[in-house]
């Protein structure tokens, strides 16, 4: 934090020199970080050597051997919810950008965002009507 001068509101200079971005310092820093990571990884590998066994490489499923395959098909609800989530997630991304710059924007942009939200609300309503928000599939006995 740079101290603020109460009277003028400007940042006061301190005894420390201001930092100027420079390629050299960044490179040295990156190299140091890389070296520390490598040293740590090598050390753990060396101090505690890996011991693998077929049993250890097996997936853990409550202490029994997992069977019957894992390549099952995801039921629709998962995919639907994921899609819907993506759509409305993108919406929030736009909304944030729009909200933080709200003061500087024109009424036209307000109208624009209203249309944008309206379209998405419509699609949400459609999703709802089609049963896309129903969780779980009917049970087959």
């Amino acid at each position, binding site marked *: 934090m740079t101290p603020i001068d109460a009277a003028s509101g400007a940042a006061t200079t301190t005894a420390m020199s201001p930092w100027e971005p420079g390629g050299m310092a960044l490179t040295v820093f990156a190299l140091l970080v890389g070296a520390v990571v490598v040293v740590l990884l090598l050390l753990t590998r060396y*101090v505690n050597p890996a011991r693998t066994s077929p049993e250890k490489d097996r997936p*853990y499923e*409550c*202490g029994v*051997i997992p069977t*019957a395959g894992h390549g099952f098909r995801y039921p629709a609800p998962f995919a639907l919810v994921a899609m819907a989530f993506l759509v409305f997630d993108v919406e929030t991304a736009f909304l944030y950008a729009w909200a933080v710059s709200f003061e500087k924007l024109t009424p036209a942009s307000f109208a624009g965002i209203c249309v944008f939200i309206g379209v998405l609300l419509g699609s949400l309503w459609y999703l709802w009507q089609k049963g896309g928000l129903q969780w779980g599939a009917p049970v087959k*006995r």
Partner: protein
Amino acid sequence: MGRAGEEMMRPPQPNAVDLAVDWCRANSLWPFFFGLSCCFVEEATAFTSRYDIARFGSEVFRGSPRQSDVLIVSGTIFKKVAPAVLRLYEQMAGPKWVISMGSCSNTGGMYDVYSVVQGVDQILPVDIYVPGCPPRPEALLHGLMALQERVKRERPLRPLLGLPGGVQGGRTEHLVDGVSKSMDTRGPGFAGSLARGTAAAPPHFEGNRSRLMWTPPAARIEVTQRDRTLAETLAERFGPGIEQQEPVSDMLTLSVPREKAHDVLAFLKTRPRSPYRRLEDVTAVDESARQSREGRPDFHLVYTLLNFREAARLRLKVPLAKDGPAPDSVTDLWESADWYEREVHDMFGVGFAGHKRLRPLIAPPNWPGHPLLKGHPRRATLMKPFTREDLPALEPVDALELLGRPLDDEEMLLNFGPHHYGTHGVMRYVLALHGETINAMDIEIGYHHRGVEKIAEHQHWHQFIPYTDRVDYLSGVANNLSYVMAVEQLAGIRVTDRAWAIRVMLCEFFRLSNHLLFYGTLVQDLGQMSAIFYSFREREMVLDIIETITGGRLHPSWLRLGGVAQDLPAGWKDMVDRFIKVFPARIKTYEALFKDNPIFEARTKGVTAVTREQAMDWGISGPNLRACGVDWDLRKKMPYGPYPSLNFDVPTGTTGDCHDRYLVRMEEMRQSLRIIEQIAADMPPGPVASPDSRYCLPDKARSLKDIESVIHHFVNVSRGPTMPRGECYHATEAPRGEQGYYVVSDGLTTPYRLHIRSPGYANVQAARFFTPGHTIPDLVATLASLDYILPDIDR
């Protein structure tokens, strides 16, 4: 102690890096539990606020072997679950250490029986043993500290640098019987003497002295007029061969020929007025080792029925020949007969005609023979030592085989258990999932089969009491009560008023302790962490009272035939009064935590609701039955002891869903407190043990003074009293439901056959019927709300 162990004794000169690594490892132990039984409860208690295991570098249990470096094996290791234990150990990342907690895990403990491994160190290396049965939480903390000391001396860098000494992680070798450990119960130098328990071993009962002791005949009850009429009706309707047995000690008993049994049962179940709705139990007795075989078949199949309306029970005995035709299955009448019949098939080899999937249920896979036959080996120490080579044959059965149908291409097969938090014990739910929805489910039990019914056949009548505590390890003396009442009713032993008051008070304390744990685990399973820490606070208060009175926490074994072990100690009343003062406010707090809590209600309301009719049919009992709106509590309907004179209400629910099961238990806590309050305020004076020295233990102090008491004390403690010939079933309202003991005596000092009708067995079996269609989170909530316990299911 191996070479590595000796090296440990003389730690080599440390270097700085060694010290740093050892210090880091010792102070960041991440325990992972393989919790099987009672020990695990004490282990879990060590994680709560009073003991606070977090000081050792772990705030929570680790969920999988990948995240942990200390495996705490707590409880009994069963042959059926042993492959899973070893697999978990092998799936842990190194360096890793193992703590074996409790005498069962250390050596098999008191469970010297065919289904138990005599020490987990026979299959995986153990670094630290924590003794006790069960060890107190402090003992586990001490074990962890001992492990830390050990880790701090390991010097893992030395072997890497080629220096002598130092080890990398814990031990690596398991022990081998006859080489590095010995299972011989006789001790060194006694190889010529008879093995323990020979006097109770059929067919010869070598050295058994029961025949020298005279006993009066068994106590008998007069069969009511209503029962007599019923017996006559059946005899008229189904023709000859149906005989009423006289005398009886407990209920109307009819002998029914095999070919008529199914029809008689169907008639009894569907009688329009006062039907025998509930199939209380199905079991069998192997009659081949009787003192006199005269007029006895090879087996008796025993059906016990319950009539809700009349509060009456009825027993049907079906004689069977060894290789004769199989009796008809009654699964078409009671869905719940499925497990009962499978168990009889598993344990006795009796088949059932018309049973759809008569596959093994309890015994380990590929198990030779039928454990409850008289000729089957009893003690593990007399069998071939169990080694790692035996594990592959015992590998848990493939999940598809359990499911019993192929998967369709949108389904996924999931093993939920045997080793999982949500299963409340080692139990395996095989789920066919469509998304999160459970399409089909099967339950595999038997991972906790302690062979307690087999053990009973070679423990004398008093010796067996400590085993009952461990059947439902959270209900302590409530288990003792079911057992001693069955034996007392058989022998006609009178119990004094004061003994009764102490018994009931302790049982109600255990009900509180159990329900507090239920509350904590239920909400924890729903993902809410705090409550369990609160409820364990009161549970510790309860256990402190129990400990002051009995000296034990979980397993006091405090009841005796004819009374209790000792009188109440000075100061008990103050403790109880203090508890009565604080508890109502605490329970209010607990309810407030979850009252109208939207998450809690969404997870429990309407989940796996069970109707009254279903609950009665499936044999659900206890709070789970009352949650369905059935007003049925043995303390009121078939009262015993001082319950008729006590004021308390029986809470019932309406919908039988998870939420009601929770509410009923919360209210039961209040009622238990009322009972305790009344008893504590009005403790009757007098002796706490029956003067009936034929069966009961005389006062120890008196046995040091007069010869009569010495003789009876000595005989009844050493070889045990001789019980009259007969049979008796008695059930009590244990915290989890109706727990009944069926004891058969052949005039020996040991039970000829003992069978436990446990509440969890029926409650959990019913989960197979009502869970499909719900989701995995619902299953977790359901299992927690059913409040079952493994050793009482698998026995």
